[in-house]
């Protein structure tokens, strides 16, 4: 397996991967009261490294870049292979941003047993980065499972309420999926190498060229899908969410909801669609319906719950539903929109959790909306930032979330019109619950226990940077789109062509014509301009071509 370097960076990806854990271990050697502050400053280092990689990234090259690949367990054909491509480049950056912000938030607060706390944070960051960067199926599964452990401890030791029960519930729920995924991952490699008489190899790139048989593919697909659906989570698998999100400490829930959940949706794009294209097409409608169900159900939950934190939690379930919808539209705009939305939602949901914490601090520590109200009068800056987050969350036209949701719906319209029409209801619902939360907390009558005060340093340190990034993305959504375009096309090409070979082949020219000039009422003018300005937007029928460098290794 040779992955051509498209561009180079001053250091190997291993540096980026292990830096957070190393820093956490080093700062654990410091006096306990310094640990957090030093680590928060030091965590700018992984952020800077990630920025270096993003700056050197070649957007037009769809294959893995900055490849690090070494044999890890030769007798099992497992490799330590890391790379960045268009799918994970923005998510890697998002991870380092959110962790830096969360560490800064924690550093300005009193934490019990700080060394352990920051150790788990460092391990979590390395594990999440590892899951995004891994280019080997087993390595991915290892990091995917490993991610769980820091959060198990963060919830169980520093959480609130029924923390131990919540954390065990969370781990068992997610382990159900991820252990099945382990079996499926091993089976994928073994079956592929058995069917094609090649040596055992788990690299993404190799497995994508060794298709398994139809029936095997469907079972393996379900193994992976279950793991990812539980982790995202979407509706029938979300039982752990409310308890876990409610018990998690705020910095942990910000990164968990912001990036850990994204690993699952990233897994669909990076692993499931390219490796099991036929099965993806086969189960497309099922997944779309699951996505739809979670959009509608979570929206309904978000506007009935009275708990501010749960409003954000359920809104993130709805957003994950949109992301799943976009992914399984199996159309380039849908999948690109899904990837953009992962980035947007990661930023917005993390910011929203920090805002909720800030609001709760003004409402006598209560996160119930009944205890809030009228906070804006004495905290106009906080209210402004909250409004930015709220508008982004409800996908206000002009925000990057709007572009994301629009592209997702565009892709879904092209593949399944009826589902897209129903999903639009979710967009409407989002504005309802997001505004309800904002108005209920910030305006209305002043709540009984409310003692409002302006945004403090300890809060601004997390909320302000996130809001700035949200604003920047609103003006410059191409940041996410342009880098992902080439890789997304490559990732969905087999699945998309599998679906074209099916019943829809006759509508094909029409479908793609519609990409250039969106049809009918949804050719919304400002957005039309926005879309038209996207560089290299999809214009032709994708044909799945094997990259030249890989033909040699296929034999």
């Amino acid at each position, binding site marked *: 397996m040779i992955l051509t370097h498209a561009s180079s960076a001053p250091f190997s990806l291993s540096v980026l991967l292990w830096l957070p854990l190393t820093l956490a271990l080093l700062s654990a050697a410091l006096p306990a009261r310094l640990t957090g502050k030093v680590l928060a400053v030091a965590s700018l280092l992984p952020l800077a490294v990630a920025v270096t990689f993003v700056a050197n990234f070649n957007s037009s090259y769809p294959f893995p870049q900055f490849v690090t690949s070494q044999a890890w367990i030769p007798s099992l054909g497992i490799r330590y292979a890391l790379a960045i491509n268009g799918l994970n480049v923005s998510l890697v950056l998002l991870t380092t941003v959110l962790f830096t912000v969360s560490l800064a938030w924690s550093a300005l607060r009193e934490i019990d047993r700080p060394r*352990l706390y920051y150790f788990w944070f460092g391990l979590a960051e390395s594990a999440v980065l590892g899951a995004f960067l891994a280019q080997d199926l087993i390595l991915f599964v290892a990091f995917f499972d*490993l991610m769980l*452990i820091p959060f*198990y401890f963060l919830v169980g030791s520093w959480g609130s309420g029924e923390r131990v029960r919540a954390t*065990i519930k969370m781990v068992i729920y997610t*382990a159900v999926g991820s*252990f099945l995924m382990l*079996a499926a991952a091993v*089976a994928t490699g073994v*079956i592929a190498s058995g069917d094609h008489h090649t040596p055992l190899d788990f690299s993404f790139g190799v497995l994508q060229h060794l298709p398994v048989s139809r029936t095997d593919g469907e079972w393996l697909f379900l193994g992976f899908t279950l793991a990812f659906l539980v982790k995202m989570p979407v509706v029938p698998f979300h039982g752990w969410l409310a308890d876990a999100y409610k018990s998690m400490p705020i910095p942990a829930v910000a990164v968990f909801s912001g990036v850990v959940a994204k690993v699952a949706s990233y897994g669909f794009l990076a692993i499931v669609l390219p490796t099991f294209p036929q099965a993806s097409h086969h189960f497309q409608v099922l997944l779309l319906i699951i996505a739809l169900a979670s959009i509608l159900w979570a929206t309904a939950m978000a506007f009935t719950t009275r708990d501010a934190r749960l409003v954000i939690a359920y809104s993130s379930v709805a957003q994950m539903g949109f992301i799943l919808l976009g992914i399984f539209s199996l159309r380039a705009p849908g999948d690109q929109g899904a990837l953009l939305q992962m980035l947007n939602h990661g930023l917005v949901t993390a910011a929203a959790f920090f805002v909720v914490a800030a609001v709760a601090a003004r409402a006598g520590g209560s996160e119930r909306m009944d205890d809030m109200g009228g906070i804006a009068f004495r905290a106009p800056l906080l209210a402004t930032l909250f409004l930015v987050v709220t508008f982004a969350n409800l996908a206000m036209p002009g925000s990057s979330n709007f572009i994301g949701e629009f592209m997702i719906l565009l892709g879904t319209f092209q593949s399944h019109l009826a589902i897209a029409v129903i999903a639009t209801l979710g967009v409407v619902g989002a504005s309802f619950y997001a505004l309800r939360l904002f108005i209920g907390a910030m305006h209305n009558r002043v709540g009984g226990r409310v003692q409002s005060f302006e945004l403090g340093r300890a809060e601004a340190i997390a909320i302000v940077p996130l809001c700035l990034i949200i604003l920047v993305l609103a003006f410059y959504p191409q940041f996410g789109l342009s880098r992902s375009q080439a890789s997304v096309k490559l990732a969905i090409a087999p699945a998309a062509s599998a679906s074209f070979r099916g019943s829809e082949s006759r509508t094909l020219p029409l479908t793609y014509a519609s990409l250039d000039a969106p049809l009918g009422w949804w050719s919304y003018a400002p957005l039309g301009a926005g879309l038209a300005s996207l560089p290299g937007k999809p214009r032709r029928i994708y044909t799945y071509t094997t990259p030249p460098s890989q033909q040699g290794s296929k034999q």
Partner: protein
Amino acid sequence: MIKNAHAMSALLIAAAHIRGPHIAWAELSPIVLIAAGALIVLLVGLAGSQMVRARVVPALAVVAIAGAMGTEIWRFTYAPQTIVAGALRIDDLALIADLVCAVAALAAVLLSLRARAPRDAGHGEFHALLLFSLMGMAVLVSAQDLITLFLGLELLSIPLYVLCAAEYRREGSLEAGLKYLIIGSVGSATLVYGLALIYGATGQTGFGGIARALATHASGGLLGDPLLLTGIALVVVGFAFKASVAPFHQWTPDVYEGAPTPITAFMATATKAAAIAVFLRFFDFAVTAEHVNWAPAVAALAAVTIIVGNVGALGQGSLKRLLGYSGVAQAGYMLTGLVVGTQLGVSATMFYVVAYLMMNLGAFAVIVHQERVSGSDRMADLAGLGRRSPPLAWSLTIAMLALAGIPGTIGFIGKVQLIHALVNGGYGWLAIVLVVGAMISLGYYLRVVAAVWMTPAEGHGAAAVSGAGAGPLAGTPLGGFAPIAGGSPEADAQAETDGAGAARAGVLERLDPDPELLLVAAVFAALTIVFGVVPGPVFQFVAHAGAVLVGLR
């Protein structure tokens, strides 16, 4: 008198004419060393000086075990050989299992340095029995003949029956010994009956002969020959008793709980390793020709074991019982590697045996410490261990996460390797059972971790203690309870009757872990992590385990 002398000389003349088998001393050296060590230890144990008994005896035992390990490593480089007229076979499979058992014995000696069991039973006897048991394991895992197999099994078991009851002033220990004796004897009887039937069916006692007889069997093999079928079924049951495979596992939690903890650690790791190794040799070599017929049955047994063990562990409050059930489940994982009947499966199983050794010994070291501190092994007593003794808390955490198969530990790699072997051998459904078992297991392993880190330590005084669910006598002033670490039997007995947890509060903070416990816990936790990240050396260690069983795919 004269008659006797005549008979004697006749015997001597006859003896001179019998050509005994060639004894390959080099290959036998580990067994010889252990046997010599056992005898010396027994004699030194008779010394009058308390110092000699308490210090020199364990040191001699360590020397004997280390010597045996040295010779085992030395033999590793040699080609496999069948020695003593086909009775034993020294190959990679045997040597790996030998080494695993020796490491477990070494840990058991260290864990029992300050324990009560050797004082009660007498240091010489205790260590000699341990060494004899180890010798039985060495014979068992290299047995190449039905007779040697049974000999090894009994040599392994009988000292263990005694060792389980070593703390003979404690009711639980006696009960464990008796239970193990009765159930173990049933297992042995079943096994010997099975061996006899197999001999009857094939006319051979050597494994090679049996394999040849089965390969050329005219009457339709296993299913066509009720004698053979019954024989193999009984052998499965006999082995299943030893390896604590469900549904023959019921003795495991009881015996594990009652036996002195160092002995529990030894049984849990070494006995299991030896039983699994002999399982492999018998099924994947002697009767491998009938693989298609026995594999589904063993697969069902493995599946049942995984589920029963994991579900059984869920509700346990005692750590030793929990590890007992977890051991049942882990035996099920190891059996899956046997089922597929491939070289890959054998290697995967032996990898898991090595992993299981590392994962368990660390946990048992912590339990020994916990028992010395609090007088019981209840999970609730672990509360606050994370603050009291971080190294032990980390060791236990790592052990539990590894047993659950979390990445970054050797348990993860072991499971990946087993799943690989299963999918490769066409037993994909068993791989699913394995991961389902692993999921269930998180339910109890994580409870232990939660008890260590997430439950605050109980405060001082009776109120806090009764909150932890102490017995009816909670709050009884037991100021002089400290001897539990130094060990007066009466105090221990009192702790038993007082419903365990009563007098912990005052003692907790004062006791630092004993250095040897810290050593065992830290070493095995470190190995669990190191080999979980860099598993290459372990893979090389077990690489040829499968290749030595000729006739395997």
